[in-house]
């Protein structure tokens, strides 16, 4: 909704987080965003509400207070067992019209990135993708949203001064989850899903969940990625072993994906995924620009390569010259089992 002055802005209050639910479980990104929402709400003197949409999710609602929620808004319905953007968008739009949040934050996941743009258009709200920093003007509630633009070459700060609510998506692992406070309590509000929410929707015919299919590049703290130097599909086994030991994920360059050595879901770079992890270990990836734009915003970049002169070895924070097939297994062996 367009707002013309501070008085109209004040009709909107509180900071909402849209819970990320995967295979029926609330995901850690929800807790991370709750922490950020708490910080914003405290500066503004308002409340944190978490919106929980799904099937059989009600019993998890109470777990969210420990992470800073004051209220949890639940819509629990069999129609949301699988991801049906149209239903979730309609329910969310109705909640927004009814309770008028000042800010809505959602995980920049495949689901969040499908759902929130739809809601932002219908509610006439401003939406900023992949924010890495959020702050608030305590006077008028304007959200200051900072995000990398142009492949991480510029940090742009974006403001949405004349629309409410203001919406942002944030990638998993970008914000830090607060330590849970089991003593906190709050209120659970239940909203219905109506018959009209469920008309004219898509029909989900088949669903395949698998922990093996779960690549979760976005959710990992450590990514170890391989390129053509892995020599074949088996080459990735040493990366998988390392990832399993540290609880990380395996990434790949386009060359390795195009060669059919590893599925596309692992591809990092311009036509794959852009990642912002704590640690990125590039194994035998020379560092074509298209790969670099997908990972240059990671906190710590480590490159391991025989050739010390590749672009990746030059841009890395730590460059290890040597044989991947010896160094990676030695690293794995040196890390105690979790």
């Amino acid at each position, binding site marked *: 909704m367009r707002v013309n002055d501070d008085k109209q802005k004040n009709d909107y209050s509180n900071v909402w987080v849209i819970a990320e639910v995967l295979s029926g479980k609330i995901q850690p990104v929800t807790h991370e965003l709750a922490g950020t929402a708490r910080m914003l709400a405290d500066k503004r003197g308002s409340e944190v509400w978490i919106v929980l949409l799904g099937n059989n999710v009600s019993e998890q609602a109470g777990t969210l207070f420990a992470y800073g929620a004051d209220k949890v808004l639940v819509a629990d319905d069999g129609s949301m067992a699988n991801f049906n953007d149209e239903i979730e968008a309609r329910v969310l739009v109705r909640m927004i019209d009814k309770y008028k949040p000042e800010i809505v934050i959602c995980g920049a996941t495949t689901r969040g990135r499908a759902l929130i743009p739809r809601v932002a258009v219908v509610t006439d709200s401003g939406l900023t993708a992949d924010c890495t920093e959020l702050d608030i003007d305590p006077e008028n509630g304007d959200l200051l949203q900072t995000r990398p633009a142009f492949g991480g070459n510029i940090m742009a700060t974006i403001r949405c001064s*004349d629309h409410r609510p203001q919406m942002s998506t944030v990638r998993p692992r970008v914000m830090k989850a607060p330590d849970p406070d089991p003593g906190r309590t709050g209120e659970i509000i239940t909203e219905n899903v109506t018959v009209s929410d469920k008309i004219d929707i898509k029909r989900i*015919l088949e669903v395949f969940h698998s922990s093996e299919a779960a690549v979760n590049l976005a959710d990992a703290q450590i990514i170890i990625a391989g390129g053509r130097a892995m020599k074949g599909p088996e080459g990735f086994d040493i990366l998988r072993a390392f990832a399993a030991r540290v609880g990380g994920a395996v990434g790949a360059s386009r060359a390795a994906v195009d060669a059919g050595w590893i599925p596309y*879901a692992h591809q990092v770079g311009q*036509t794959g995924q852009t990642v912002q992890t704590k640690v990125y270990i590039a194994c035998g990836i020379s560092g074509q620009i298209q790969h670099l734009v997908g990972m240059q915003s990671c906190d710590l970049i480590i490159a391991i390569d025989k050739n010390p002169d590749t672009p990746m070895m030059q841009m890395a924070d730590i460059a290890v010259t040597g044989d991947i097939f010896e160094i990676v297994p030695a690293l794995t062996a040196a890390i105690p089992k979790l």
Partner: protein
Amino acid sequence: MKIVVCIKQVPATNDAKIDPETKRIIREGLKAILNPFDTYAVEEAVQLRERFGGEVIVLSMGPEKAALSIREAVSVGADRGVLLSDRAFGGSDTWATSYALANAIRKIGDVDLVICGKQAVDGDTAQVGPGIAAHLDWKQATYVMAVEDASDDSIVVKRMHEDGYDICELKLPAVVTVVKDINTPRIPTLRGRLASEKIEVPVWKPADIGADLSKIGLDGSPTRVVRTAPPPPRNTVTKKISGTSAECADALIKELRLRSIL
């Protein structure tokens, strides 16, 4: 099936160099290319037309030179294109962009399916596809990795998720956004190239698509960039490790411990 493919012209990063000081990509002076994800959207549309008949229309918004990207799409099989180009569209954010594109899709008329790339590589937002669906009040499927089946009134697609995939049927009209996995784009034929040179690309202005001027461009954009700054500096000095494999592994473990990562 009448298919509209929404495309965007973006800066090419192929020839980009790394700034040795900041260790970031130098974007200045890059030439413009068709957004890589959009090449898969165009190919999928052309394949659907080959299987089910119909027409593929490419739609873009941008400066007049963006017509080149429309011609590129025609060279690989699209039938025709339309460009939205006017000062009034300038500065549009994803809300305003998806509003303008949705209006153009209505004006094209009788469209069954809109295909977009997952996201544009310059903005990286992935917001315009679902935004178009919302403005049109059509169904949507994002991160589509395969079109399993299609008919006159429905399409069956496979969607990629973090924890697997699903297959869903959408009654048309609908909007889908596609990932790279979906196909291998073809190379233009000589005939395609000739067609792309001959074709006229009409340029539509806000009035042509019945756009409300308060909903396009900077005025129609809820979000505004208020400040830009260089990103937090990377460590400009690379720590170099070499030696035997065991020494390398030890040194690396030490570095990780030093940074409290292990």
